[in-house]
C-alpha cells in the first residue's frame, strides 16, 4: 500500500523532503531487526528532532496510517517489524544526551542514545546507569524502555522500568503527555515500560544515575552440578547477600566460550557462577567470608577470586562472547528468553537439556542465575525454511517448559511477533482481553506498532480463567451485580461511609497463602492487615519494606502511598469492574510479557478493579521502610482518561477524595 500523496507531502513539510523515503531499497532495509521476522513498510521517516514526532503522528493519525518506531533495531522478538505496513519512524538520529545532573542523580536523554554512550559519559563523573543489557554497546535507551530491558545487574538494581524517572511520550494520535514518578496515581512509567511501542513513542527520558561502586570483587566458582549452582544463589539470598551480578553457564557453554575467548574459564566444570559483590570494603570483606562458606557448603569445586581488573574484564568479555560462539557456526542465532522462579531453574534447565538432546539440537545455555532468566542460543539457517521451522518449534517447546515451571515467556526481550502466539499459553482469556482493552483505549485506530504482543485469535486459543476461590468469587459476583457506585475498601476506607455508595470490603481476603523461602517471595491476599503481615514475616525471619501501618496489604499497594513497594511486587490478581478476574506475573524477578498490570493497579486507588492477591519479594535482612506519601487524589492524565473509561465502562468504582496512608 502506498502512502497517500497528500500525506507524503505533509510529512515532507514536517521532517524535510530527504527524510521521507519511499524507494524500495530504503524500505526493504528497514524491514527487519535481529529476529527472523521481516515485513516491508510503505514509507520510512528519519526523525532528526523530537519536536517533529507529535506532528508526524498527527498526520499519520489523520490518514489512518500505522507506524512503528525504530532506533537500533537490535531486538530478538520482531518488535520492529511493520506487520501492517505503514511507516517506520527512524528515531536513531535522536541520540543526544541532553543533561547530566550528578547533584540530583539523573540524566536526560533522547531515545536514540546508546546505553553504553551514556555509561561512557557518566563514568568520568563517577556515576553509572544501572541497567546493563548484554547488547548495551548497540541498543538504545528508548528501546530499553520499550522492551523493559535489563541485564546482569538486574538482581540487585532492577530493570529499566525502575530507573526511568520521567518520560515524554507521544500518543498514537499525536498528543504529547509527560509521565513522572512524582505524579499521583498508577506508576505510568512502569506500565509504559515493555509496551514495545504499541502505546506511543517516547521522545525524552529522564533516567536515574547512581554513584559507581568504588569496590568490586569478582569471583569465579565452579560446581559439580547446575542444582548446586542455583542452590548457592538461593542460600546467598537467604543470608541477605545480594550480589551485584550473578551469571551462570552450563558445561557446553563454558567449553564453547573458553574455546572462543580463552578467558580462563575452567572447562572441566559442570556449571559455574560468575559473581560480583560491591559496596563498602567492610561490607564486601564480611560478605566474602559468607560467600565462600556458602559456596563450599554447596559442593563448590573451585572458588577463584579474580585478582586484576584486566582478568575481570576478560571474563566478562568472554561471557558476552557467548553469542559470537554461536554466530560463527550458522547464519542465524535465535536467542530464547525464558524466566522461571529461581527455585525451578534446575528443573527447567534439566528439561531443556533433555529436549535439546532428544531433538539433537546444538545450543548454548546461559542464565542470570539470580533472576531465573535463561537464554538458550539456538542456531539455524533461515534460507532453509524446514530447519528454521524446526528450531522455532523447539524454542516454543522451551518456552512451554518455562510456563510449566511457573515462569514467563519473556524476562527481558519482549514479545513482539515471534512469541505472540505463546501469550495465549501464558495468560488466560480475561487477562488477554484486558491487554486488548488497554491497547484499544490508548490507540483506538490500532496504529502504533499494530499486531504485536496480543495474539490475534486469543479468544479461541487462550485458556479460560481458572475457577475462583469462594471468597473471591463472591466479591466478583458482588462487583458484577452492583448497579450503583461501589467503593472498594480496606480497613481505613471502611470508616468512610459515602451516602449512596455501596462498600465492598477486602476483609474476607485475609490469608497469607505462601511464604516461599527459596524464591524469597510471599503471596498474600489483599485484605491482610499490615501489622499481621509484618509479624508473620518476622516470625519466619523475612522482611518487607511495608510499615506496620493500620491498613491492609491491598490498600498499601493501591493507595499510592508506598511507591517504593511497587518494584517488590511480582504478581497480582484482581477483579475488574465487570466481575472478571485477571492474573499477571508470578514468583519472578522479571516479566516482560504483556502490559505491566502490576504498575497499572499500583496507586490506582481501586479505580481499575479490586486487587485480591499480591505476590511480593521479601528479604532475609531488614530493609528500610518505604517512604510514605500522603494520600492524594489521583492525577487524571491523558492515559488515565483513556484507559479508565475503557476498563470501568459504567463508572462503577468509586474513589475516595481523601483518606489515610493505606486504604
Amino acid at each position, binding site marked *: 500500500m502506498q502512502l497517500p500523496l497528500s500525506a507524503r507531502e505533509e510529512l515532507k513539510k514536517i521532517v524535510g523532503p530527504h527524510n521521507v523515503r519511499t*524507494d*524500495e*531499497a*530504503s524500505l*526493504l*532495509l*528497514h524491514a*527487519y*531487526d*535481529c529476529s527472523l521476522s521481516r515485513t516491508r513498510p510503505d514509507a520510512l521517516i*528519519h526523525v532528526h528532532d523530537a519536536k517533529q514526532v507529535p506532528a508526524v503522528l498527527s498526520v499519520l493519525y489523520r490518514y489512518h496510517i500505522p507506524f512503528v518506531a525504530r532506533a*537500533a*533495531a*537490535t531486538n530478538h522478538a520482531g518488535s520492529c517489524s511493520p506487520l501492517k505496513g505503514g511507516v517506520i519512524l*527512524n528515531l*536513531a*538520529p535522536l*541520540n543526544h544526551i541532553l543533561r547530566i545532573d550528578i547533584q540530583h542523580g539523573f540524566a536526560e536523554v533522547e531515545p*536514540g542514545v*546508546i546505553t*553504553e554512550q551514556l555509561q561512557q559519559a557518566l563514568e568520568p563523573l563517577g556515576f553509572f546507569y544501572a541497567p546493563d543489557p548484554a*547488547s548495551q*554497546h*548497540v541498543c538504545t535507551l528508548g528501546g530499553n524502555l520499550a522492551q523493559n530491558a535489563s541485564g546482569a545487574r538486574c538482581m540487585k538494581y532492577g530493570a529499566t522500568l525502575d530507573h526511568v524517572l520521567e518520560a515524554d511520550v507521544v500518543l498514537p494520535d499525536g498528543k504529547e503527555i509527560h509521565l513522572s514518578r512524582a505524579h499521583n496515581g498508577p506508576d505510568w512509567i512502569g506500565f509504559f515500560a515493555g509496551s514495545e511501542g504499541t502505546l506511543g513513542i517516547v521522545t525524552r527520558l529522564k533516567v536515574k544515575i547512581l554513584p559507581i561502586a568504588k569496590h568490586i570483587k569478582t569471583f569465579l566458582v565452579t560446581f559439580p552440578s547446575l542444582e548446586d549452582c542455583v542452590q548457592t544463589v538461593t542460600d546467598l539470598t537467604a543470608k541477605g547477600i545480594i550480589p551485584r551480578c550473578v551469571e551462570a553457564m552450563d558445561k557446553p557453554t563454558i567449553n564453547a566460550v573458553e574455546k572462543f575467548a580463552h578467558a580462563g574459564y575452567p572447562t572441566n566444570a559442570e556449571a559455574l557462577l560468575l559473581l560480583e559483590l560491591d559496596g563498602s570494603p567492610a561490607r564486601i570483606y564480611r560478605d566474602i567470608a559468607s560467600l565462600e562458606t556458602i559456596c563450599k557448603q554447596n559442593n563448590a569445586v573451585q572458588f577463584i577470586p579474580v585478582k586484576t581488573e584486566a582478568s575481570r574484564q576478560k571474563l566478562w568479555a568472554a561471557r558476552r*562472547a557467548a*553469542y*559470537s560462539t554461536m*554466530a*560463527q557456526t*550458522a*547464519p*542465524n*542465532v535465535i536467542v530464547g528468553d525464558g524466566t522461571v522462579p529461581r527455585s525451578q531453574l534446575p528443573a527447567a534447565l534439566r528439561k531443556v537439556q533433555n529436549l535439546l538432546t532428544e531433538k539433537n539440537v546444538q545450543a548454548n545455555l546461559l542464565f542470570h542465575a539470580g533472576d531465573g532468566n535463561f537464554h538458550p542460543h539456538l542456531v539455524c*539457517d533461515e*534460507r*532453509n525454511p524446514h530447519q528454521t521451522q524446526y528450531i522455532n518449534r523447539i524454542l516454543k517447546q522451551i518456552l512451554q517448559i518455562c510456563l510449566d515451571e511457573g515462569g514467563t515467556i519473556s524476562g527481558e526481550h519482549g514479545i513482539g511477533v515471534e512469541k505472540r502466539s505463546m501469550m495465549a499459553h501464558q495468560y488466560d482469556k480475561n487477562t488477554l482481553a484486558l491487554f486488548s482493552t488497554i491497547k484499544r483505549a490508548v490507540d483506538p485506530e490500532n496504529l502504533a506498532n499494530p499486531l504485536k504482543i496480543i495474539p490475534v485469535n486469543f479468544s479461541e486459543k487462550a485458556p479460560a480463567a481458572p475457577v475462583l476461590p469462594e471468597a473471591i468469587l463472591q466479591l466478583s459476583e458482588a462487583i458484577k451485580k452492583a448497579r450503583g457506585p461501589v467503593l472498594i475498601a480496606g480497613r481505613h476506607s471502611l470508616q468512610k461511609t459515602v451516602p449512596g455508595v455501596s462498600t465492598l470490603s477486602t476483609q474476607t481476603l485475609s490469608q497469607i497463602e505462601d511464604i516461599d523461602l527459596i524464591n524469597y517471595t510471599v503471596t498474600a491476599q489483599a485484605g491482610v492487615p499490615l501489622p499481621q503481615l509484618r509479624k508473620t514475616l518476622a516470625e519466619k525471619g523475612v522482611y518487607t519494606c511495608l510499615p506496620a501501618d493500620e491498613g491492609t496489604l491491598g490498600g498499601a499497594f493501591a493507595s499510592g502511598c508506598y511507591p517504593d513497594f511497587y518494584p517488590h511486587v511480582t504478581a497480582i490478581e484482581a477483579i475488574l469492574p465487570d466481575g472478571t478476574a485477571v492474573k499477571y506475573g508470578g514468583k519472578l524477578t522479571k516479566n516482560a510479557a504483556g502490559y505491566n498490570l502490576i504498575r497499572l493497579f499500583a496507586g490506582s486507588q481501586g479505580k481499575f478493579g479490586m486487587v485480591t492477591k499480591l505476590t511480593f519479594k521479601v528479604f532475609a535482612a531488614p530493609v528500610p521502610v518505604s517512604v510514605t506519601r500522603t494520600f492524594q487524589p489521583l492525577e487524571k492524565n491523558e492515559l488515565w482518561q483513556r484507559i479508565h473509561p475503557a476498563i470501568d465502562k459504567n463508572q462503577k468504582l468509586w474513589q475516595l477524595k481523601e483518606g489515610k496512608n493505606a486504604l
Partner: protein
Amino acid sequence: MPYKKPCLDPNSPKQHLSQIISEMGTRDIYSSVSFCSRCGSCQQDCPLYRLDPQETNSPRGRNQALRLILEGKLSEKTNRSLFAKMVEDCTLCGKCTRACAGKIPTAEHMLELQRALHIKRLPFSLQTLLQQHAKHPSLFSCLVRTGLLLRRVGAIRILELMQFTRLPAFAWLRRANKLLPKKIHSLNSLFRKAEIPFTPEKPGCIYLPSLEAVYFLPDLALQTVRLLSKRPPLILTQQASGLFAYVYGDLRQSRYAVYQLIKRHAKEKKGTLPFVTDSIDLYNFLKKAPQLFTAWPRLQQKANRFAQKVVFIADFFPKKPAASSKQLPVLLEKSALFNQEGPAVLSSEKFLLTLFKKNLVQCFYTDAEIPAFGYGFTCHNKAEQLGLQTAQVVARSQAKTVVTLSGLSALEANYVLRRFYPAAKAVHIVQAD
C-alpha cells in the same frame, strides 16, 4: 537439499572473487553475506553510521542490501544511485568485521558490489593517472614528478584561481595540494646519498615501499631500509602492489599485479625471504593474496606461501628499544583498510608501549577514524567530518604525536590536525621516535 547459490555478476566471474576468505573460512559471496544475523553489533563501530544513523549507512544494512540483490528481491539497476552511495561512503576500515560476532567481511562485500555495479569511486583524471602505475610505471613516475614540479612553480594555485579545480573531475587537485608535503625529495637520490643499493648482492628480505613512501615520504622509505639493515632489502620501487586496482579498479589488474609479486618473491631464494611493507593497508591486502586465486588451486597454493611471508615493518623493530626521551603523550592511530586487528597492530602497539611507556595514550578510537587510503578523494565531505571527529579525539587525549601505521594515514592525519588541532602532528610508526 543444496541451496541455489546466486552470484553477483555471472557473465564476468573473473572480475569478482569466486570465494571470500575470512577468519571463519572460505565462503562464496552469498554464504558470506547470509552469515549476517542482523544483530546490529557492527552499527556503533561504523564511523559512517555514527555520523548519520540510518540503516543504509550501517554495515548490517550494507550486507542486507547485497543479500537482497543476490536473492533477486532488489534490482541493482533501479536502485543504483542508493547502492552507489552505500559503496562510495564505506570507508573499508573493517571496524565492523572486528565488532561482528560472525566476523562478516563487509568491506569485501562492498568491493564486490562496487565491481558488479562498475562504480568508479575516484574522479576520472585521478583514476587514469593511478592506473598508469600498474600499466606503465615509468610514465606514472614521470607524470607524478611533472605534477610535483608544476605544483612547486604554482601551477595548481593558478588553476585554483581560474576556478578550474571547482570542476568535479579536478577537485581532487585542491585536496592533493593541501595534503601532500611541500618539499619533495627523490627516493633515488636519497638512496644514492645514503649508499643504499636497490638490489643488494645477498638480499635478506624484499621490501615493497608504498606509493606514498616512494613519491611523497621518501624519508619513510629511507628509515624503513635502515631498520632492515641487518637483512639488506631488495627494494621494489617500480612494482605495482595491486592494492589500488583492488580497491578502485579492475580485479583482474590487481590479480595480475599480485601474481607478479608472487613470482618475484618466489624467484629470490626460492621464496624464503620475508616480504616487508611499510603500510598497514598494503600488508592487509597482501595477506589476502590467496583470496584472489581461489579459482586456481595451484596459484592459490603459491599465494598462500607468499602471504605467509608478508610482514609489516613493525616486526623488524628492535625488541628492546631504548625508551624515548620524549615526554609528551603519544597516540596510536590504528586506522587501516579491511581490518584493524591482528599481529601487525599488536606488535606496533607493543613497540610503542616499550618506547613511550606511560606516555602512550590508550585510546580505542571508538568515535573517530582517519579515513584511510584515499577516502578523502572519493568522499570529501564525509572525510572532513570524520577528520574533525579524529581531531577531537586527539585533542581530548592531549596527545602531541599521533602515530599512524601507513604513510597515507600520516598525511591525512597531518592535514586534519593542521586545520583543527595544530598542537599535534602525525608521523608514521617508523619515524615515531
